[in-house]
Structures are given as structure tokens and as C-alpha cells.
């Protein structure tokens, strides 16, 4: 209950935020990315954090939503985008059910490995088929819904916020329900869980389906927002890893961990991409602009955000495996 109240308050604040910052497409864009990554990571967290089943292939579900939506809208431009979102959920659910039925009988490393294999099959198939736009990707010229101005960013800000709130709401509800307890029992010890009457594959599949469906909605929203997708943007292994990393940094298996992770990582990535970090170092006088290091930083830092992710991953696993929120969690 306390958590639901907190979600409501924060959602209200986030709702009002665009009114405060006014018309600033750059800031709004970053906020949309934060909300999207927070929601993606929260959706992953239901499966990975609560049920303990680490999926390394969540990009497949994101891509399923994005591609289903954009392919349908290119063929039937007048279709209501929400129908496309629903069909995206179905596509993602089919992929999830296939993955789940193959690997949830097995334990240990197999789910992680198989989730990557499935995601790669999806990625390569999309790349090789013609109707998916292949390597060129898909460009959507125009889209409309209820007369909203979909050229502005605000509708997408609220769309992402809505999905995030729903995801957090589902997570908060799960935590206090039978399903949530069962998922955590599966995470802690599968034999014990099974001996206490828990149908392992049913509950694993259930959490995978919830997680995949939410992820695909975010993929659809992203596709409608950017209106251009290709496999490297929506189906890449790197996206799957970014989703996990966000949860790890904030705190896996906690309600707010993914949100905290997104609040840290997305702006950091943005600072690297826009070379803000390099500029700051130079401006602060720490590095001279004309020195070899300064030139190197200026030229390369923008491409280095994945390298930085790698370093953060390693440091986080070694020194902060329970994430930032893990630090504050009282030991019972």
C-alpha cells in the first residue's frame, strides 16, 4: 500500500514535469529515454529480479512490438496504432511461449543461453526477410491517433510514463500476492519451491509473458516515437544488456531499482554521446584541450559509452552486486 502511494505521488510529479520545464524537445527527449529504460528494466525485473530467470534476450520482445507496429502501419496507414500495439503483444507472447516451453524445463545456465539464441534468431530473421525492411529498416512517414500531435514529444512522454506506472503497479501488486511470493521462492530454491506445491514452469512462463508483453508495448511506443527502426536499434544484444545493467545498478529484485538505474545510466550515456563529459573535463581545467589526452577524449568519448557500460558492469558485479538500493536495504 505504501508503495502504491509512493508510485502515485511520483507519477503525479512526473505528470506535471513537462508543464514546469516547458517546451524543450532536448530535455523531453532525454526524459522519454529515462522513462523508457526505467520501464524496460522494470519489466525485465519481474522475470529476472523476482523469478530469478535472467533473460539476456529481451530485445526480441522490444523488437517484436516495434516491428509489428511499424510493419502494420506501413501496409495499413489508417489502422489505429493501438491495435498494432495489441498485435505486437501477441507477437512477443508467441516468442516468449516458444522460448519458455523449450527452456523452462531446464535449470542453471540454459535459460540465459537460450534467451540469447532466440533473440539472435529473431534479429537475423528480421535482417534477412524482405517484408521487415531487412538491413535498411523501416521508416514510417506519418501516424495519427485521436487527433494528438504525434510530431511533438509530449504524447510519448505521457505514453512511456503510463507504461512505467503500470509496470511498477503490477510489480508492487505482485510482491504482495501469491504469484509474487511464488516467483521469489523459485528464485531462491527451485527444489524447495517445487516441494511446496509450486508449478515451476507455469509460474516462470507467467512471469515471462507479463514481462514480454510490457516490453513489447514499449517497443511499439518507441517505434511510433522515432518512426524509424532497424535491427541495430531495436533487436541488438546490446539493448538486452543495457536493460539488465540498468536493473543491476539500481538493485535487482527491488521495486525501485530499475528506476534508480535508469535515472543514473541514461543521462550518463547522453553526456558521453553529446561529449558533455569531455567538454566538462576541459572546461574544468582538468585536461588541456590541445593535449594528446584532450584531443583523444574529444574524438573518442562519444563512441565510448558502451566501453563505459562494460566498466560499470564489471565494477558493479564486483563491488555492488545488490545495486544501489541494496546498500540501503535493511538486513532483516
Amino acid at each position, binding site marked *: 500500500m505504501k508503495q502504491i502511494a509512493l508510485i502515485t505521488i511520483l507519477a503525479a510529479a512526473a505528470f506535471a514535469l513537462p508543464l514546469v520545464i516547458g517546451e524543450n524537445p532536448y530535455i523531453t527527449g532525454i526524459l522519454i529515454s529515462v522513462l523508457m529504460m526505467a520501464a524496460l528494466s522494470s519489466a525485465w525485473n519481474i522475470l529476472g529480479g523476482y523469478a530469478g530467470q535472467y533473460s539476456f534476450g529481451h530485445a526480441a520482445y522490444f523488437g517484436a512490438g516495434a516491428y509489428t507496429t511499424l510493419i502494420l502501419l506501413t501496409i495499413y496507414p489508417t489502422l489505429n496504432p493501438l491495435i498494432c500495439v495489441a498485435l505486437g503483444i501477441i507477437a512477443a507472447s508467441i516468442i516468449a511461449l516458444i522460448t519458455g516451453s523449450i527452456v523452462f524445463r531446464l535449470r542453471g545456465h540454459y535459460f540465459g543461453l537460450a534467451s540469447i539464441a532466440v533473440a539472435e534468431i529473431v534479429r537475423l530473421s528480421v535482417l534477412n526477410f524482405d517484408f521487415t525492411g531487412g538491413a535498411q529498416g523501416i521508416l514510417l512517414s506519418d501516424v495519427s491517433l485521436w487527433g494528438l500531435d504525434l510530431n511533438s514529444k509530449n504524447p510519448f512522454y505521457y505514453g512511456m510514463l503510463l507504461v512505467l506506472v503500470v509496470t511498477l503497479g503490477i510489480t508492487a501488486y505482485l510482491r*504482495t*500476492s*501469491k504469484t509474487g*511470493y*511464488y516467483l*521469489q*521462492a523459485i528464485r*531462491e*530454491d527451485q*527444489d*524447495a*519451491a*517445487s*516441494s*511446496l*506445491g*509450486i*508449478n*515451476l514452469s507455469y509460474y516462470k512462463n507467467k512471469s515471462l509473458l507479463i514481462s514480454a508483453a510490457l516490453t513489447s508495448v514499449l517497443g511499439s511506443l518507441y517505434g511510433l516515437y522515432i518512426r524509424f527502426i532497424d535491427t541495430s536499434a531495436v533487436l541488438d544484444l546490446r539493448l538486452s544488456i543495457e536493460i539488465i545493467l540498468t536493473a543491476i545498478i539500481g538493485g535487482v529484485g527491488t521495486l525501485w531499482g530499475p528506476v534508480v538505474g535508469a535515472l543514473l545510466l541514461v543521462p550518463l550515456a547522453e553526456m558521453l554521446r553529446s561529449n558533455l563529459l569531455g567538454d566538462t573535463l576541459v572546461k574544468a581545467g582538468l585536461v588541456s584541450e590541445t593535449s594528446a589526452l584532450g584531443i583523444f577524449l574529444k574524438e573518442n568519448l562519444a563512441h565510448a559509452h558502451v566501453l563505459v557500460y562494460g566498466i560499470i558492469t564489471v565494477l558493479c558485479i564486483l563491488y555492488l552486486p545488490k545495486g544501489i538500493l541494496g546498500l540501503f536495504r535493511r*538486513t*532483516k
Partner: protein
Amino acid sequence: MIQDLLRISHVSKHFGGNVAVLDISFSVDEKQIVGLIGPNGAGKTTLFNCITGFFPATSGEVIFDTKKINDLRPDEICRLGMARTWQRVKPLGSLSVLENVMVGAFSVTNKARQAEENAMEQLKRVGLTDYASKSAGSLPIGLKKKLELARVLATEPKLLLLDEICGGLNHTETDTILDIIRTIRQRGTTIVFIEHDMKAVTSICDRIVVLNSGEMLAEGNPEEITNNPDVIAAYLGGGHHA
């Protein structure tokens, strides 16, 4: 009273070429306490695993409440009313003691509040009320054994399989657990009890089944078993520790 609540006939279990359990048959009537004893490696735990669906038996039949359960999954068997504890305790480490027991209780209710009430009741029964909000992983072994018991009781089993629930406990702890077991039986639960401590076994069991190297060595009431020369030989010969 139901005769043969559990009937095991000609159950064998092979691991590759290794025979862990060979042609075991016995049955358990309702409200009985049956002891299952034997030296280390005799196959007691393996037999439990066959009965509860963790390792399907290589051959033979397991019949529970007139239903053949060989091919059922452990969770299905649990929901039919047969539950087991683990010799190597398996607490859900990062959950609290109360939450551990609630997980058990959810097999009979879907409501969190009801599960919590049932769980608190079981905690009271085994004397863990004060530890309800502690994390299960942090308990000492004696309390973890009690938690195993509370958790499995919360599934409201008709038949309870206890695998060395007193193992590694001191005398007073063992006595408390034996007392709990007696009250459980009075309420109508049937129990199969694996234990090395002969005093504990003879004091509460109605019948005893003895395994040795996977085979059934003897079966009878406590007096018959303690006087059985084969059993005495097996225990003196085998590397038994109490």
C-alpha cells in the same frame, strides 16, 4: 482409518549403473508414524525423492490415497497432500521466516492475508514466532530445521515425510521437535520419519522399516527391530553415526 494411505511396491532406483534403491515394498496406514532407518548411503533420501516425484523411480509403483503418483511432478504430489522436508535444509534465504512459511500456506489459499494468518499459526506451533521477520538465510541450523517443519506443515499435508528433521540438533531441540511431531499426529497427520537417532525413532514410531545398501533389511514394531540380529549386524558393520 484408511489402510495403505501410502503404498510402495517394488520400487527401484538406478543412477547409471549404481543401484541406490532396490525392490522396496511397504505401506503406511493413516495416522501411523513409520520410521525409515538405515546406515549412511542406505537409500533413504533417494526413496523419498522417488516417492515425492523428484527422481522418478526406475521401476515399481508408488500409490498415494489409491492414486498412482509415479508420473506426477513434485508440486502436484504436494497439492495432493503429501509433503516432504529436506535433509539438507533449503530455506528461501533472502525471504523472511514468515514469508517462507507463507509460501507453503499458499498451496491451500490464494489470499495473502489468509496465508499470513496460517503461517503465523505454524510459526507459533514450532516456536519461531519471535523470528518471523528475520531473514531465513541467517537462522542457525536448529531454527532452520524448525522452519522446514513449519513451512511444510503450512501446506496442510495428509502425509508428511520428514528427512532427518532432528539431524544436527541437541537433545532439548530434538525433544521439542518430537513433541511437535506427536501433536501433529494427534491431529490426524500420517508421518514417515527418517532418523539416525534410535532413541528418537523407537520412542515415537509405530513401525520401523530398515534399509541397507538400497535393500529392505527388516520391517516391524520398534521392539522387533531393536532385537533383530540382522539390523544389529548392519548397524555395527555399517559406518553408523548417531
